[in-house]
C-alpha cells in the first residue's frame, strides 16, 4: 500500500493568510468605530496624566503592594473560575439535566448585581455574622471578610458568571460529534472532557478566562464592601485608586495607567503563549 507521498511535506508554520479578500466596508467601518471608541479614552487619559505623578506613583511601595495583591487575587480567582466554572459550563452545554434552564438563569444573576450589592450579598452569606459565615467562624475560627481569601471569594463571585456563560457558548459552538466518537472508543466522560471536549473548545475557554481575569482585576465594589480596604491584605489596585481619589486626582490617573500597562503586558504575554495557538 502506498500512503505518504515520497517527498517530505513540511508542516506549515502558521495558518495561511486569509485569502477570502478584503473585508467589506460594512464590517470594517463599525470595527474601526469600535476600536476608536475603546481606545480614544485610553489615549486621552494618557495625555491627561501628569508625568511627574506617574513617576511618584511608580516608585511607591503601597502601589507595588496593591498591584501584587491585585494580580495574586485575580489570578487565584481565575484559577478557581476555571476549576469550578468549566465543569459547570460543561454541564450546561452537554448534560440534559432537569432544571438546566433554571440553573443557567441563576448563574447569570450575579452578573446583573451592582458590585456593591454583590458585596452585601456576600456578607449576608459569608460575613462573620452571615448565615454560612457564622457557623464557619464558630467551628473553624476562620472567616472570609477582611482577608485575602475574602478578596478572592469576592472576585470569584463576580467573575464566575462571566466565565461560565462565555465558556458555555464556546463549548456549544465546538459541537458534540467528537464527544460521541470518543465515547465509542471507550473513553469515559472525564477522559473525553480532558482530551477532546476541552482542547476543541480551547479558543472559547481561553477567551472566557481572559474575561474573568480582567473582570476580577477591575473589581472594586464587592471587594471593598465585603473585605474593607486594608493595605497589604485586602487593598487591591482598584481600592487603592479609590483611596487616592479622595486626595489626589492626578495620582488616580497615574495609578490607573500603571495598572493598565502591567495588565496589557500580562495579556500580551499570555496571548503569545496560549491564545494564538488555540
Amino acid at each position: 500500500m502506498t500512503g505518504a507521498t515520497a517527498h517530505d511535506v513540511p508542516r506549515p508554520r502558521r495558518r495561511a493568510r486569509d485569502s477570502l479578500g478584503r473585508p467589506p466596508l460594512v464590517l470594517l467601518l463599525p470595527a474601526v468605530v469600535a476600536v476608536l471608541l475603546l481606545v480614544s479614552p485610553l489615549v486621552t487619559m494618557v495625555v491627561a496624566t501628569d508625568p511627574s505623578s506617574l513617576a511618584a506613583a511608580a516608585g511607591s511601595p503601597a502601589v507595588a503592594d496593591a498591584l501584587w495583591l491585585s494580580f495574586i487575587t485575580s489570578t487565584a480567582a481565575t484559577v478557581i473560575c476555571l476549576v469550578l466554572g468549566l465543569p459547570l459550563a460543561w454541564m450546561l452545554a452537554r448534560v440534559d439535566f432537569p432544571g438546566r434552564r433554571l440553573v443557567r438563569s441563576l448563574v447569570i444573576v450575579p452578573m446583573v448585581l451592582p458590585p456593591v450589592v454583590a458585596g452585601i450579598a456576600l456578607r449576608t452569606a459569608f460575613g462573620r455574622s452571615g448565615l454560612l459565615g457564622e457557623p464557619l467562624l464558630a467551628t473553624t475560627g476562620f472567616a472570609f471578610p477582611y482577608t485575602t481569601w475574602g478578596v478572592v471569594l469576592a472576585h470569584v463571585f463576580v467573575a464566575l458568571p462571566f466565565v461560565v456563560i462565555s465558556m458555555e457558548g464556546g463549548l456549544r459552538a465546538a459541537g458534540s460529534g467528537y464527544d460521541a466518537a470518543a465515547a465509542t472508543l471507550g473513553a469515559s466522560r472525564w477522559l473525553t472532557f480532558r482530551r477532546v471536549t476541552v482542547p476543541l473548545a480551547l479558543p472559547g475557554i481561553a477567551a472566557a478566562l481572559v474575561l474573568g481575569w480582567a473582570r476580577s482585576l477591575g473589581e472594586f465594589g464587592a471587594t471593598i464592601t465585603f473585605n474593607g480596604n486594608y493595605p497589604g491584605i485586602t487593598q487591591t489596585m482598584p481600592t487603592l485608586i479609590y483611596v487616592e481619589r479622595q486626595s489626589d486626582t492626578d495620582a488616580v490617573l497615574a495609578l490607573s495607567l500603571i495598572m493598565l500597562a502591567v495588565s496589557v503586558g500580562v495579556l500580551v504575554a499570555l496571548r503569545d503563549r496560549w491564545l494564538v495557538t488555540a
Partner: protein
Amino acid sequence: MRDVSPGRAGGLAATLTVPGRLDVELTAGPGDVVAVVGPNGAGKTTLVQALAGLQPAAGEQWLAGADLTGVPPQERHVGVVFQDQRLFPNLSALENVAFGPRARGVAAGASRAVARDWLDRLGVGGLAGRRPGELSGGQAQRVAIARALAADPALLLLDEPFTGLDVGVAAALRVELAGHLAGYRGVTVLVTHDAIDALTLATTVAVLDGGRLMQVGPPSEVAARPRTEHVARLVGLNVIRDGDRFRAFTPSAVAVSLHEPDGSARNRWSGTIRSAAPHGGAVRLQVHAGHDLIADVTPAATRELGLAPGRRVWLSVKETAITAY
C-alpha cells in the same frame, strides 16, 4: 424481542426501532461479518449509530452475552468508523489511533506501539505525526479505520470504510481486513455500497430499505437471488418483480438489436440507452425501458450498431436464461 439466543451466546442480537427511520431485527454469531447494503437513506448509518449507542432507539440489544440495552457507548466495546470520519482534529494521527487503547486502560507506551502498528498496516505509518487537517481524504479514512480496529472492539461497526480510498489501497485493505476478520471472534457490521465488499468480506448480507430488512442471507444466495432493485443493481443482475416472485437474468444474457426482434420471445422491451461504459472486456449499457435494465455487449457490436446514449433499442432475453424464485 423474539430470539436473542445468538446475542446471549456470544454474538449479536438486536431489535432496534427509531421511529420513521429504522425498524429491524438483527442477529449474528461470533466471528460473523454482516454486510449491510441498501440505497441512500435506507437507515444504514442509523443502524450503526443505534448499535453503537449513539442513536437513541427503542428495543433490546445483546452482545456476547451482555445486555447492552441502555448502556452508554463507552461501555459497549464497539469500534466505529464513522461515515464522516470524526477524527479528533486536535490530536495527531498516532494519538487518534492510540486513543482507544488508552481509554481502555492500556499504558501510554503500549498504546502508541499498537497505534503505530495499525498505522503501518494501513500504509499511513509515515503520517503518524500529522493532524487530521493535514491529511488527504483517503489518508484520513485510513487513520479512521486504524482507530476503530486498534480499540480491539467486541463489535466492529464500519460505515462505508472504503470510501475515498484509491483502488489499490481499497483492494489491499480488503485483503488486510479479510485477514484480520478471519481471526476475529467479535461481530462486524460493514455498511457498503460496493458489491465486492459484500461478496468477499461478508458471511451474511443484510439488505436494508426504507428502514426495514428486506433480505438476509449468505452473500452467494443474496447475489444470486436479489429481492430488491438495489441489490440487483449492486450485483449487476437484471431483476424483474412479478407479483411476489422474482425473475433474474444476467446482463450478458440480454440481446440488443435496433429493430423489434422476430420470433415469440415474450421477454422483450424497447427503451433508450442512458449510458454505455466499459465493463470487463464488454461494454455495459444502461437502458431505460420502463424499469432500468442493463445489457453487456461486445465492443465490436457497440461500434457496429452505434450503441450510444440516446439511441432507442430493443432488448430481449431467452426464457431459459431466466431464473425465477
